[in-house]
């Protein structure tokens, strides 16, 4: 698997590595320290090749509990699991599951397979990997850059860690999840994969004011741990 706009990434200097049967941008050839500094300032990473999945249906909550996922009662909140999975509760009947950053396993596929036969008819999978693109915006200016594209107040005082907004970003339907990396603000952005190139260019354009630039998966791992 590779990102739908891999040609854009190549022209930006992306260096790809195989990661869980996918071709993932590890860095842009700028050196480890420089990319980590970029991610702390304002970085845009394409995580589309990484695993993610979803579950939906009236019996989703009961099934999620039986599958060992710990999710709270509040919608539009993301819950970090002990194994690194990030489970975003989108409604009473739907969750989005993001593979743990840094995990070398396709935890989402394991989750789908492990409980496949115990899953009731009222809980079915949502093919997020093939339907949704996944970008991550990091750094101290990430909130300011998003403010140029999204009408919602995403500042930390009103949108704290784990908060989710299902809203419009650059006029595109988007799921925004705040998932700070320590003290560094960070947002997951998931949206229809057919808009990947458009959304990427909008975010790059919005970030130019704050000296933003693309960063690779490796720099996120450096900040994450």
């Amino acid at each position, binding site marked *: 698997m590779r990102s739908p706009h891999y040609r854009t990434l190549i022209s930006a200097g992306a260096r790809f590595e195989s990661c869980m049967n996918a071709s993932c941008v590890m860095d842009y050839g700028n050196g480890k320290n420089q990319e980590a500094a970029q991610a702390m300032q304002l970085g845009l990473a394409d995580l589309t090749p990484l695993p993610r999945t979803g579950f939906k249906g009236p019996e989703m909550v009961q099934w999620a509990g039986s599958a060992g996922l710990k999710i709270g009662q509040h919608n539009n909140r993301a819950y970090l699991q002990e194994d690194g999975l990030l489970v975003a509760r989108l409604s009473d009947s739907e969750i989005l599951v993001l593979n743990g950053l840094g995990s070398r396993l396709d935890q989402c596929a394991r989750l789908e397979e492990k409980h496949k036969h115990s899953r009731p008819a009222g809980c079915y999978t949502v093919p997020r990997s093939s339907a949704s693109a996944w970008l991550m915006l990091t750094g101290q200016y990430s909130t300011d850059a998003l403010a140029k594209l999204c*009408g919602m107040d995403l500042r930390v005082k009103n949108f704290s860690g784990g908060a989710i907004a299902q809203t*419009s970003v650059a006029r595109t339907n988007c799921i925004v999840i705040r998932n700070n990396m320590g003290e560094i603000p960070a947002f997951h952005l998931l949206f229809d994969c057919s808009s990947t190139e458009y959304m990427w260019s909008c975010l790059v354009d919005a970030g130019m004011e704050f000296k933003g630039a693309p960063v690779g998966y490796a720099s996120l791992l450096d900040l994450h741990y």
Partner: protein
Amino acid sequence: MKIMNCPLNGPRNISEFICFGEVSIMPCPQDSSDDEWADFIWLSNNTAGVVREWWCHAATSYWFIAERNTVTDEILATYPASDVFTDRVEFKHKNNL
């Protein structure tokens, strides 16, 4: 900016929503006449005043019901459709079809 309160997502710009017209009670598919069914499908009341309407939050495809004054365009209340429609409607084929 006009703000609408989504029962699932909270206050949002009205541009994130789509109106799908008035809420009307579906006649029984088995027992209704053609005229009753055509009225349900094609005709609207176009009330001047407070109406109940179907709305959808486009970013989440979440459908809900809003009470709106069509004269002042004031949104009075929004709530989940499950507050009104508590039973699932099953469609059965007519024996003579």
